[in-house]
């Protein structure tokens, strides 16, 4: 009898402990869940609803059915904006990855002052994007900026980096890479640290040179980190604040729409034209495109496991 009581007591204690752990788990998850619900899920649902309304910008709503979505087909700016976004992402994602990786490899090994170098490379990422934009505006302004002054030596001083449609987008890409490369370096540095040292040593003993070690050992073993870096930088490029803030401060979508990224175009529709309903429809298009891209990426890489 006594033994039964002991078993029951032990079982009750285990059950209480499990319940306590479950409660703690829910409590820990609650903050994130509530935050995601309010700041992510709710706006998505609202955007979905508003896309079916004409919203004047002053609180007047009128049911529009599919009109906002039909308008997409006749929107002459939309293809331009999608192309600008695709070019921006197509250049930014690989460039920032390659430079981030190069920096990570450079500062992976210890050398005197490596901590300082790592910090210096990471600093741009902690700056406000508006500050970044203002600094670069000062650096590249026509003729009198420091960069045009330097380039004058090789007869390239007359290029208008932000005022010429041929160069404005690439300038934004380069500024974005400068801003993000330090962050990517940090992530990739973590990935490099996870690669077993003995694998690298073994390949070195087998006579693999630096390039072969990089190609056949480091990059394959870095795949999960690279997957995360490439995916998040794609999202940043297409929907992130850098695709908006830099454009907003530096070019306002110009010159001649050459930097009108989708986030900026959505902003224009919402706050210049007062078409919040159509802006919501555009937002859904962007979300749909990104969902397809991310879905295909996950599928191709088996959820980033590459197995």
């Amino acid at each position: 009898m006594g033994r039964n009581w002991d078993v029951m007591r032990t079982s009750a204690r285990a059950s209480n402990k499990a319940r306590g752990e479950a409660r703690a788990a829910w409590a820990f998850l609650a903050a994130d869940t509530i935050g995601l619900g309010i700041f992510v899920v709710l706006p998505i649902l609202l955007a979905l609803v508003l896309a079916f309304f004409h919203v004047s910008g002053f609180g007047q709503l009128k049911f529009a059915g599919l009109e906002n979505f039909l308008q997409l087909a006749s929107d002459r700016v939309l293809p331009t904006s999608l192309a600008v976004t695709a070019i921006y992402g197509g250049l930014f994602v690989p460039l920032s990855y390659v430079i981030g990786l190069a920096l990570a490899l450079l500062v992976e090994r210890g050398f005197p002052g490596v901590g300082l170098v790592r910090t210096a490379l990471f600093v741009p990422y902690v700056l406000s994007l508006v500050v970044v934009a203002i600094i670069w505006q000062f650096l590249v302004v026509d003729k009198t900026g420091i960069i045009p002054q330097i380039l004058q030596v090789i007869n390239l001083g007359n290029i208008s980096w932000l005022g010429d449609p041929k160069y404005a987008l690439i300038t934004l890409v380069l500024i974005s890479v400068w801003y993000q490369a330090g962050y990517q370096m940090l992530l990739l540095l973590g990935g490099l640290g996870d690669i077993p040292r003995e694998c690298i040593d073994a390949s070195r003993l087998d006579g693999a040179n630096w390039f072969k070690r990089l190609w056949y050992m480091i990059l394959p073993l870095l795949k999960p980190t690279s997957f995360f870096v490439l995916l998040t930088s794609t999202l940043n490029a297409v929907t992130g604040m850098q695709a908006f803030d830099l454009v907003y401060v530096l070019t306002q979508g110009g010159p001649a729409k050459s930097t009108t990224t989708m986030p900026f175009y959505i902003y224009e529709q919402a706050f210049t034209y007062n078409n919040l309903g159509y802006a919501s429809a555009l937002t859904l298009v962007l979300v749909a495109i990104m969902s397809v891209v991310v879905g295909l990426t996950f599928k191709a890489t088996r959820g980033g496991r590459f197995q």
Partner: protein
Amino acid sequence: MSYALPHPRNQLKGPQFSRRTVMKSLGIGAGALAAPGVLTGCSGGSGGSSGEALSLWNFYGDDGTDSPQSTWWVDLVKKWNENNDQQVELRYLTNATYLDGTTLQTAFTAGEGPDIFLLSTGDFLRYVNGGVLRDLSDKMSDDIVADFQPALLDARSVDGAIYGIPFEAEPLAIYYSVSAFEKAGLSEGDIPETWDQFYDIAGELTTPDQFGSLFATTPGYYQNFTWYPFMWQGDGRVVRKDGTVAFDDAAAVDALDFWGRLIDDGYAARNARGDGASDSASNLGSGAVAMQQSGIWDIATLRQKNPDFEYGVFKLPHPEGKESVTSVGGWAICVNADGKDPDGAAEFAVWAMADQSKEGRERALAWNTEAKTNMPARESVIELAQDKGVWSDGPLQYFADEVAPTGRAEPRLPPEVYKAVSDAIQNVQLSGADGKTEAAKAADTISGFMSTYDGASVAY
């Protein structure tokens, strides 16, 4: 006097829902409305019952400094609050947030717009068509109305109803650097009058370190505002008085090509320093450009930031055989029709900007000549300035005597029309496109929009 104007809000056809109704039926709070709105930075407003202080949003003060502009607004509100039960509270927003940002509009979208706020003519139609502006004409006697320059009041009126009281007029001209002229071997006698002369002089002033000229290059209301006079000089318009589109006329095409040619040939900068083409201190004052189109406000700016900089001013150049015409901008005070106490807010607005007493005129004069450098919007204040000899010499006198008489009020156009014009300017100015083609494209877009537009009348 009172005018019965059909409220623009009631002109929407079909079943309608108020924002609150829809949000309530969805079980969703208003605060999250700004959904496309991953981008919005919604502000707190001033909801609540009457008796609370009325909120006055502006971009001058109280900014925490003792700058003349901030002080003027602080003193204005202090004076009112000392003598009235209905208190007013200033809320300062930075230029970037107020002029180019979303704070004002998102506040209105969320039903929490300020009781009193400042509005430019360029943005007027958006707000009047949104039905959020209170008609102030019942608070303005015939004497008060007669005191204002008619064009400035007309730009804020719809069918006799006055939705904004202008408190300044800001004409545009060309500022030039005296030292840049001298270095190029030019003198006052070489100041250009026509477009061709301006083009030649800009070429002579262009060096490896300096652009001959600077016009606005960033797309936006400001760029359009600065470009319109060049179209007007050739007798052009965006939309004729009968509502038909005139943007593909030769006047608009020539004005587009004039700006494009200056950029193409490297005689005008493609982008500007500092706060852009309205900031003479950062561009003309720094020696980056030799001539810059800007407004009367830059007299005060240059006085404060570059007191030793030697400059001159001349009227906007015009096509051969035509007259110089300029744009006159400036801000007006408006009242939220759905605010806490629209009646009380209207009384404040009229007192603040149209007070006929000696003290009221002195206050307006101080704003236009001490805190800022503007032309007053009221005839009585202009007379007071002349009596006091405020514009006795220098660039202010030139603006008063030569530039202001050539001015036309900034056009009020719906955002869709403004944007079509903006696209044409951008494509010709910075992308090397042909003026005629771009003007035709814009005219086509504007025609399509105007055929369905049923808001307040488009002016100019």
